[in-house]
């Protein structure tokens, strides 16, 4: 039996907004799960239901074998990190770290030792006597990571913890989070809208949209083999290109690829790195924008089939208006149903 199980979990607000529409998810002990999706997809609501900060409208949350759906947050033994740090401003850093331990019945000595240990692990020992408002965001979030871990909770919950930090701090803290998670082996639920964060942190990514789970899988499964068009477009930077195609007699236009699908319209998906410049290729496009990104460049093209993006090495630049021919890697073309975006092949 899995360590954390969400069964038909649902949240409907009094104003009628159906934030989470009956999701099922099984998480193993020690797993790092990232809930990924655009704002309003229900990922934060799901996390808050697991924490007990929102009441589930229907469904069950099981933690370590017990039903916790109706338990108060304080009874669930979870630690949570908030986007805006939420360190208690009137308490010193040390008092903030001690706070979750006060109700645990640990002896004072043990509490102090725990705080010193976690502060050392996170590299904030020199900040213990300071107050949160005196510290930059990165340090504040480090401390709130510690506050959520110091009790050695059964679950570590994180709600976009890196959202407000600049990219340097973000990368730094990403490493801290991963290291702490591995070291403590604590089962983690992490919410983000940043697919790169999800790809690098997760054991498994749970892609959500409009209150339902679109796909749950390892980063490479979600990236290479998306279950539908939404996941295909949301994961990857930029997302998967979509080309409207038509199957006739087992051959798919406009790429001219053989496919094992019945006749009719189909949507083809190709990642930007599987498009290659080729003057003899089946597609032609006009350069809209050449985005130089250091290690590579994204070439945005207007084609008869829509806007396509091609990932290229940082070689020579293209000018807007240039015409470019393209071909695709046949092995990496995916087919989706035009209506609901389901994956066909």
């Amino acid at each position, binding site marked *: 039996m899995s360590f954390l199980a969400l069964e038909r979990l649902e949240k409907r607000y009094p104003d009628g907004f159906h934030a989470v529409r009956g999701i099922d998810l099984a998480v193993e002990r020690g797993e790092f799960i990232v809930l990924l999706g*655009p*704002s309003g997809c229900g990922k934060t609501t799901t996390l808050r239901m697991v924490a007990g900060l929102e009441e589930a409208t229907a469904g069950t949350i099981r933690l370590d074998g017990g039903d916790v759906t109706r338990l108060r947050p304080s009874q669930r033994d979870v630690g949570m990190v908030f986007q805006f740090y939420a360190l208690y401003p009137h308490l010193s850093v040390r008092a903030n770290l001690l706070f979750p331990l006060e109700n645990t019945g640990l002896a004072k000595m043990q509490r102090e030792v725990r705080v010193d240990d976690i502060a050392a692990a996170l590299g904030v020992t020199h900040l213990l006597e300071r107050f949160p408002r005196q510290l*930059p*965001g990165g340090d504040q979030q480090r401390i709130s990571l510690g506050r959520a871990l110091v009790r050695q909770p059964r679950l570590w919950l994180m709600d976009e913890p890196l959202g407000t930090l*600049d*990219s*340097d*701090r973000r*990368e730094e803290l990403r490493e801290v989070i991963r290291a702490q998670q591995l070291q403590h082996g604590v089962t983690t639920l992490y919410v983000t*809208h*940043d*697919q*790169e*964060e999800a*790809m*690098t942190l997760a054991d498994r990514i749970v892609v959500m949209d409009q209150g339902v789970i679109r796909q749950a899988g390892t*980063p*490479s499964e979600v*990236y290479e083999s998306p279950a539908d068009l939404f996941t295909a477009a*949301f*994961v*990857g*930077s*930029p*997302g998967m290109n979509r080309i409207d195609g038509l199957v006739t007699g087992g051959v798919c236009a406009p790429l001219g690829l053989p496919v094992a699908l019945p006749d009719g319209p189909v949507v083809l998906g190709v*990642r*930007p*790195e599987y498009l290659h410049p080729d003057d003899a290729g089946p597609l032609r496009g006009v350069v*809209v*924008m050449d*985005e*130089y*990104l*250091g*290690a*590579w460049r*994204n070439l*945005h093209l207007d084609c008869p089939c829509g806007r396509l993006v091609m*990932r290229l090495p*940082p070689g020579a630049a293209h000018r*807007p208006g240039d015409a470019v021919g393209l071909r695709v890697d046949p092995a990496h073309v995916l087919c989706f149903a035009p209506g609901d975006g389901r994956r066909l092949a």
Partner: protein
Amino acid sequence: MSAALAIRGLTKRFGAVQALTGVDLDLAADELLVLLGPTGAGKTTLLRCIAGLEAPDAGSITLGGVDAVGLSPAQRDVALVFQNFSLYPDWTVGENIAFPLRAPGRAMGADAIRERVAWAARMLRLTDYLDRPASRLSGGQMQRVAIGRAIVRRPRLFLMDEPLTNLDAKLRESLRVELAVLRRELKTPMLYVTHDQAEALSMGDRVAVLDGGRILQQGEPRAVYERPVSPAVARLVGLPRINLLPAEDAGGGWTAGGVAIVPRAAGDPAGRCLLGIRPEDLRLAGGSAPAEVQLVEHLGAALLVTLRWAGMQVQALVGKDAAVRRGDTVHPAADPGRTHRWSAAD
């Protein structure tokens, strides 16, 4: 033709904090200059000085050949877009966009205003939303309206202060391209402040790297990325970050931690140096010194491999077909022509 913006020796201090020190900056007409720097580098202060919201302690700001120090923000005719889009929630999109045109002293007729608003909405693909209250827009639409409010008066200069920072990552990506295309069509010079690497490299005609209130380097994105003048610039530009290794000259090549890393090239400094290798320039085979793979991260189109090499932690960006797993031993190598060397004194 005079530059759209010329700044000389701009200095600003807040109490004990030296926010800007001797900043020189030029912006040509029809140019997009990105100011890249970490939090606290002074980017926003610089922008606010140009907009006239802060008075500099020393230095000159010239807008289109006219000395701007002493002019009020309104007289400078620049448009500023903030990170937090402040729209009037009860007004419609159209009313929000029209607001700057109704400012006293602009005296535009109702028809002229309507025409301008329609033009701005068309540029930003907001035409279908003109009658919708701002409170019922998504984050991306709100930021587009905020940009609409900036472009509608056709200012002589755009100042953008991390306009995409508060948006979802996915939205940021698409608006980044949209904004760059829009700017090209408007042909209005723009100063764009960001800490986002992708925005800095992809959007600008030029990029200026700011840290500690000083401009460390400015130039075309590719030049700054490929030829950073100092380790500090190299570290600030590019993600995943450049690997910096303190190396010693051991006759034929550079060594770090006692093991040979890369051969020497002509013009290398003697003695000691700081060696910079971009992650994408580090191959996993062909070298002599072994490295242990500590972590393999799937970045989608590529793999980011963290290695323990010559006693240092380094990262390599490799194609996703590379068969590499945690715990493997590899022999990294880099083409000396693609590495950077700074004498240890820098």
